[in-house]
């Protein structure tokens, strides 16, 4: 059954326990960077960093307010990365997790360029892509993803898709009393395997705007360019098979006319 990771940004306090739990479960190395003036631990996704908590300081009349946004793979139901992967190395589990088969991955980076959310990263030494796999090894055994398991405020919930969607709608009504601009994000944008309650505009969290997020170039490629190209190659092969039949199997009649051929004698 389709599962959903439901992230309620209004409940996030940026403890970054999810970042640690993710590193722990997935056995990812620490990626120590110099302090750059922000409390945000990681600037963005990396080969060893599958989840990050974005931290934005917003100046308001009554002082500074923090906006926290936990980010990871959206596990799109129409996943651009999966569509463009030339080796079918990116796959989908029955629960809806999009994960990479490292044996098939050649590190070409097509997914990196085409993901609307900037999630996949390729290691230039191992030539393998890595990203959040929604802890597929945990969820297929009935556990919740590590980030959800560790979240102390209940900002990261995990469950059946319908239940999570209903919970998100209920929660949205409550959150809107305090954050009038709050929206649900992820259902329309990526198919609902990851749902957000965002208290602000998606751009604040580094997310693309509301609306479906499969790049038009990917659609043009997969639904038009590729099929047309395949038909062209198929038509050529067919033409040559027919020509071979008429030229060699069912030999042409001997010519008697004046038409001279420079053929092989």
């Amino acid at each position, binding site marked *: 059954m389709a599962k959903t990771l439901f992230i309620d940004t209004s409940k996030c306090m940026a403890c970054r326990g999810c970042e640690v739990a993710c590193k722990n479960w997935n056995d990812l190395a620490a990626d120590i960077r110099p302090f750059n003036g922000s409390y945000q631990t990681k600037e963005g996704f990396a080969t060893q960093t599958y989840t990050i908590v974005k931290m934005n300081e917003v100046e308001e009349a009554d002082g500074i307010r923090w906006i926290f946004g936990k980010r990871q793979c959206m596990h799109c139901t129409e996943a651009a990365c999966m569509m463009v992967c030339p080796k079918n190395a990116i796959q989908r589990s029955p629960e809806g997790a999009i994960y990479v088969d490292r044996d098939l991955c050649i590190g070409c980076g097509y997914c990196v360029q085409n993901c609307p959310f900037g999630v996949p990263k390729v290691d230039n030494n191992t030539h393998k892509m890595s990203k959040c796999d929604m802890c597929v090894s945990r969820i297929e055994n009935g556990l919740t993803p590590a980030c959800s398991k560790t979240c102390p405020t209940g900002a990261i919930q995990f469950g059946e898709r319908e239940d999570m969607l209903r919970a998100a709608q209920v929660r949205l009504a409550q959150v809107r009393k305090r954050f009038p601009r709050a929206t649900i994000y992820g259902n329309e944008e990526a198919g609902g395997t990851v749902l957000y309650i965002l208290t602000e505009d998606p751009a604040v969290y580094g997310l693309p705007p509301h609306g479906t997020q499969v790049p038009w170039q990917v659609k043009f*490629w997969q639904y038009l360019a590729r099929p047309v190209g395949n038909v062209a*190659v198929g038509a050529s092969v067919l033409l040559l098979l027919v*020509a071979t039949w008429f030229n060699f199997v069912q030999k042409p009649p001997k010519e008697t006319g004046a038409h001279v051929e420079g*053929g*092989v004698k």
Partner: protein
Amino acid sequence: MANKEPNIGIVKDGKVRRFTKAGIAAHWVHTVTFLTLLLTGLSIYVPATTWIGNLFGGIQNARIIHRVVAIPYALFALVLLLVGSRQQMKEWLKVAFTWKKEDFIFSAKYIVTEFMGRHGDLPEADFINSGEKVNSILTVGTLFTLTISGFVMWFPETFPKWAVRLAYPIHDLSWLFMTSMLLVHMYLSLIHPKMRTALKGMTTGWVDEEFAKSHYPKWYRRVTGKDA
């Protein structure tokens, strides 16, 4: 129309000089580089042909070779033609991009008659016939589309995201069209009983006079000054 390279059109021992040395060199440079790019590309891009990567010492080597060979593919044939065969290159491109009603008739008739080993009454061709015009246009066209899109894919950080994403389908469509044309081109030059003699033109530069007369009558008359 006296637009011809000095040696082109000379008749000797029943043969006609058809291609310049630089033109021949350009053809084979293009052949070798394109086939290398096709094979490495197949190993990178098509799941069923991943094994081809082994011929190049593994898929990561194939990826490097694909980029390295792309440079001579993009430049060498073009430079050879510009330096050594500018006259014939101009003539070739002019003929290739000039389309009349008879060109469509030629291709339509050719496919069902001559291509299938039957005799067909075809409109007279000039330097190249309309099938070869399609091949020429695709070869030149995809040289540009493959080079430009490949360059964008090679340096994705340098270009805007929309352009990088658009480069993939352009690269894909280009190689698929070019490969389908190449299959027909190679079939005609290597296998087809009536046409494979044309290969001599691309190895020696000379073709049989009779072949030139019957296949390229307009060109034959133009460059030799004789009747076809």
